[in-house]
């Protein structure tokens, strides 16, 4: 199922599908490990930013960014 990153549930896991935004932002996210195809887990939600885990790193992403990333969420039981 495809979801906006910002709307994923805590603990949900998936693969990054696409990132909307200018070249600068896409490159910046890529440098931090967020590229299409990469596995991403939503670790924490708040009223503002979210925390995701990508390539063994926890990243805080502002809401404006989390709303512009599409994720193909894994179906079925959550792991761990």
């Amino acid at each position, binding site marked *: 199922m495809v979801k906006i990153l910002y709307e994923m549930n805590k603990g949900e896991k998936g693969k990054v599908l696409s990132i909307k935004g200018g070249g600068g932002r896409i490159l910046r996210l890529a440098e931090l490990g967020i590229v299409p195809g990469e596995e991403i887990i939503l670790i924490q939600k*708040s009223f503002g930013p979210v925390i995701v885990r990508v390539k063994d790193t*926890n990243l805080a992403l502002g809401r404006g960014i989390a709303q512009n990333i599409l994720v193909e969420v894994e179906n079925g039981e959550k792991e761990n």
Partner: protein
Amino acid sequence: MEKKKIKVALSGNPNVGKSTVFNLLTGLRQHTGNWPGKTVERKEGIYIKDDYILEITDLPGTYSLTSRSLEEIIARDFIIKEKPDIVVVIADASSLERNLYLLVQILELHSQVILALNMLDLLSEKKYKINFKKLEEKLGIPVVPMIASKGMGIEELVNKIIEVFKEGQKSLPRKIDYGDLEEIIEKIEKNLPENLNGYNSRFVAIKLLEGDEIVKNFCKEKINYYEIKELIGKREDTAILLANSRYNWIKNILIDTLEKPRTPVITFSDRLDYWFTHPIFGLPVSFIILGLIFWITYTLNNLLADPWENFLGFLQSFLKGLLFFLPNFLKEFIFSGIWEGVSILLTFIPLIIIFFFFLALLEDTGYLARVAFVTDRMMHILGLHGKAFLPLMMSYGCNVPGIMTVRTLEEEKDRKLLTLIDPFIPCVPRILVSAFFASVFFPKYASLVLLSLYIISFLAVFISGKIIRRFLLKTSFSPLIMELPLYKFPNLKVLGLYVWEKLKAFLQRAGTVIVFLSAILWILGNFPSNNIEKSFLASIGKFFLPLLKPLGFNWQLLLGLITGFVAKEASLSTLSTVYQASGENLKNILLSEITLPTAYSFMVFQILYIPCVATVATIYKETNSKKWVLFSVIYSLVFAYFVSFIIYSLLRIIFHD
């Protein structure tokens, strides 16, 4: 025998313990300055072993080497232009895949690279295993495992640096296979100008594909850019393709060298983060922690104030005794004029030590990033993100450490914005002056009046933020993108060195400005007559008085504001000097001389107008630009003037004055 010099650059992502390694290596034999013309700190130091002197430069922590941030430009220009003998890439072993992304780019630029794998303790907590031998073989460079925070692996790193230097083989930089893009890269390379400012052609071609502005601009200067532009085309996914190729290269390296457990281990960090980043509890927890730090800082500072002042008094009389032979006017100038500036400077020492100790603690343990996370939503109101919270909050105590903390933000423009709006936050001395006025003129509503001043200052921060971002910096809001490093125990030696560096930088760079400005103000206040009412300062006050009539000020108040520039609390002592009264008498005189609207307008002006000498000096130190200091001063004056004017006019209508 002459020792051999080895030029070493330390590079790595932020939060990998790079400054720990640097501090442990160089200790006090280090030197901090700014990169020429930049506001980024340049740290250099030496380490001597046997016949070798390691000249170590700590490059700014970066995730990559593109040209979108000052730090990245500095790091890559250093590697390309200053040609260090050896580049040490320090990586967080517990998130190796992402950390190697920078290594890949450095391998494309430099042939003598050593990988230092730090934080092995976190690696074993996650139950990851690395096959170091195999990693070395596959990467083709030496790998040094280390736990820098415990001092492990530092010695081995030094030995490895010397070993690699001795071998001295200069192979060519590595080639990463970019798959389908190789064809375009090759074509672009053929179209490049001869002289590439020291960059290699492959690197330039790759950076052009990534949309790197600096590289693009120098190519445009030298050749007809049209053909290259055609080659790059309008594809928007090239940057992603390049990044993917690099990650694939890394994955291929790690596939049989890094072993992860099947089910991820829940780490100590994960458990702490449950509370520290909790959507509901996270914010109150951060308020409690920061509030506690704020409270301890200013309580300790107040406790130390008296003994410290006594000590400074002792120092002053001691120096006076030492310099007894000087003529009187010179003694007067040194011990009243210059000493005043010096003592202002020195009174900041306890505050800076205590505050930066806590800041280093927050940063080193990793909690600072969580503060930014939980305050992010709230800071959006001001058009800033979570990283701006700490500087602003600290400014409620004193603007100086507040502005010194601004450099924790990444974007240059965010830093400028924050530096400009920060002085609108009323520090404790400003509130004390206002509290005195409030107790005289509004005895029953003093706390309400103070609250109203806090609200006005908050609105000033809010409105200025919007104005400056929109009309001056012309940028939109930059959202939060930040790594949350794993929590770790701080290293005391590193904390100590951090505090020492901050203090030294403040004394050296802000110090001269503070002493200079206060000496000038002292001369203006004591010549031609040392009766302040007949001094140059009074003449200046009287000259500008007509300008301030619309705010209701008399020249005594104006003089108070002028001396308040030296230190905000000086306003009150000036008033008591010019009215020749103190305590109850001063209160009565003020009540008879000044109307309520004037008093309130004075308080508003006093909260908002130019920050004190120490703050101005700190702004200069941080921005390294006279233009910005001047702008900051004028902007706050104009802003304070308009707000006070509006409030004064409204109050006069209300009070039928």
